């Protein structure tokens, strides 16, 4: 090995006998090969990129298996990026801005899908969706097109403990007052602190609260907008209904365990699964969590819709579905999605057997789906969930679908966390309900 001496051209052999010229040429070759690799790979076949926010191991495995099978069959490679729901929209937008858009994505809120539609980055899936019958609201359209292919409802149900209800002689509540009484009866205090909560309702400024906290409000009949998109939250009878809801929330808050201000999706489940709360709000995913972490409790739970003061019932929801982005490979992505929903839709649903509460009605007759042992075990709950989407007596509504039609305006309200902040003003700030409602209405007006 030569020793490098500055200015000595003869001693130009550096480390491992490599000359400067050789080093530069080799580096350029390596860099050039690296830069050219994607182009070379592109010539050998199509590669699609799929942003998946269903991050359970079973769902990731189901998607991976399907993609591997598709690649073996067609040569189209599918790269899956799995990312939690909370950051997936930002990830998708960053990918678009970075010039490497995803071809497909699982989207979880209509607010997310409409932001993409408004930005003009989605391909309509109308023909694909129209081939089937869908449950209430699932095949929603915007500007005459269907923009995603739903696979579940994510209905936010009230879970209760049957054993505790029996112990205390309680009945499934028909009104919000009865619900409050049940929560009070099941609250266990440790001094002045709540040790076991009567219920948990999220309060943080995030999508968990937007999704889960407003069933009682919808059961009360509260509207954010009238038919002409005027904000009516603080107007007339509607304001009175909203006030009743906030007053109820303030009372329920006293029965909740501490930490609601930072409670996450996962904690809504864990507080119930660990016996820290007698009620919680969640989709079918909670049943899966109970089976995995506390199977004993999986035999002792029941579900009901959120009641209003005069007996109305409502459930909040957030469909999950597949989207296809406008990219040079949209046609290939559409072909893949069509194949996937024809061949692997049931596998996909069964990967989260209770959470993926079917939005496509033919699935309820599918023998393979029906015969899944866990669906068999929790058949009663599944049928109750089905009855919720079939019965007109139960209102199904969400913050991001408020108003006379699907529109970007309620999505803006959803994304800006206006309604969670209204709850915080009431529960944490002890502000009068009318002031909280007026502030929220004013904020909505300023946003839209």
């Amino acid at each position: 090995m030569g020793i490098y001496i500055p200015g000595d051209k003869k001693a130009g052999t550096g480390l491992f006998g490599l000359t400067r010229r050789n080093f530069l040429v080799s580096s350029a070759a390596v860099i050039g090969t690296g830069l050219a690799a994607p182009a070379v790979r592109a010539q050998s076949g199509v590669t699609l990129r799929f942003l998946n926010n269903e991050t359970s191991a079973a769902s990731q495995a189901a998607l991976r298996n399907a993609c591997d099978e598709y690649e073996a069959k067609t040569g189209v490679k599918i790269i899956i990026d799995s990312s939690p729901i909370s950051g997936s929209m930002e990830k998708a937008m960053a990918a678009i801005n970075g010039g490497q858009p995803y071809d497909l994505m699982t989207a979880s809120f209509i607010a997310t899908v409409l932001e993409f539609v408004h930005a003009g980055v989605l391909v309509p899936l109308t023909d694909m969706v129209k081939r089937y019958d869908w449950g209430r609201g699932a095949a929603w359209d915007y500007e005459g097109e269907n923009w995603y292919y739903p696979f579940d409802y994510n209905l936010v149900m009230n879970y209760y403990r049957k054993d505790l209800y029996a112990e205390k002689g309680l009945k499934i509540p028909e009104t919000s007052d009865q619900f409050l009484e049940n929560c009070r009866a099941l609250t266990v205090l440790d001094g002045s602190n709540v040790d076991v909560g009567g219920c948990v309702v999220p309060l943080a400024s995030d999508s968990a609260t937007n999704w889960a906290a407003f069933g009682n409000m919808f059961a009360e009949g509260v509207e954010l907008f009238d038919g002409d998109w005027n904000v009516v939250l603080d107007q007339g009878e509607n304001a009175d209904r909203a006030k009743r809801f906030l007053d109820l929330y303030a009372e329920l808050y006293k029965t909740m365990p501490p930490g609601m201000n930072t409670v996450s999706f996962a904690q809504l489940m864990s507080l119930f699964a660990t016996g820290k709360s007698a009620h919680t709000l969640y989709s079918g995913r909670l049943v899966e969590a109970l089976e995995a972490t506390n199977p004993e409790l999986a035999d002792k739970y029941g579900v009901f819709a959120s009641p209003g003061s005069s007996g109305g019932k409502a459930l909040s929801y957030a469909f999950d579905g597949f989207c296809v982005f406008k990219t040079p490979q949209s046609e290939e992505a559409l072909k893949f999605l069509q194949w996937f929903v024809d061949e692997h839709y049931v596998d996909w649903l069964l990967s989260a057997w209770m959470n993926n509460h079917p939005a496509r009605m033919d699935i309820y007759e599918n023998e393979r789906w029906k015969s899944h042992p866990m669906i068999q075990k929790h058949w009663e709950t599944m049928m109750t969930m089905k009855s919720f989407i079939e019965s007109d007596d139960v209102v199904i509504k969400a913050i991001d679908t408020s108003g006379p039609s699907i529109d970007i305006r309620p999505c803006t309200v959803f994304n800006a966390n206006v309604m969670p902040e209204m709850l915080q003003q009431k529960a944490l700030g002890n502000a009068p309900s009318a002031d909280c409602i007026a502030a929220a209405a004013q904020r909505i007006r300023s946003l839209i």
Partner: protein
Amino acid sequence: MAQDWRIVTLFIGSILVLGAIIGGPLVYAIMLSFYSAKSFVGELQWVGLANYAKAIQDPLFWQSFANGLMIALSAIFLQVVLGVGIALVLNRRFFGQSVVRAVSILPYFLPTVVACLIAQWILDPNYGLLKSLLASFGIGIADWSSQAFTARGTIVLVSVWLWTPFVVTCVLAGLQTIPTQLYEAARVDGAGPWRQFWHITLPGLRSVLVVVILLRGIWMFNKFDLIWLLTKGGPLNQTETLPTLAYRKSFLEFNLGGGAAVATISFLILAGVMLIYLRLFPIDDTKQER
């Protein structure tokens, strides 16, 4: 001459790289603040200074500024006081000094997200370690996240835990540059520990402390990750700071122009304060003496 070319090339290369990775995004963010952008992928519309006008008319902006200032000042005060104290102890000779010095810097190696998760596990009002510990003494624990004082206090405490070791390391290095003869002379003249600290140690650490406070000030005022991980600006915006407000506007409300305006104003405020600070406390000792 050949070496000169290499130096010039490396210098220009560095400037270009820095310009691309720091200057580029900065200019782009400032440019965005003059536009209305409803989403990341929508069309930009020129609105002039409207985003700035909206930002400074928003009470939440000033509340966030005040919150940020309060959190930064409290954290810096505690970090510096504790950092100097710990460094003074570690500067003395004792058995296991090297080990204790190494251990004392460990929290600085923790990624913020890990530190925040640990803090949440300790402080969780339902399952937390602190709750279990206090329960054994029959004491209940308050819900730290639902009250402004405790939420801010938690942010300050976690930041003190994480970044005091940085102050310790800098001050310890500074202490080792103070000639021991000065202390010996002071002792001969009858100066006690307090007078030695006040007249020798503190002046000797002046340059170090000026830089440490400057850096900690910039980092704490711009702190986003810790606050977002612990409180997300809640409860009721009581821990909202300008960086979290800029994030909220940009990434939750998809008001990119509004978020960029908040970030730009925050940058200008910080730059102004730092200029005044450096004017009052120049890093170069000779300037201070003039």
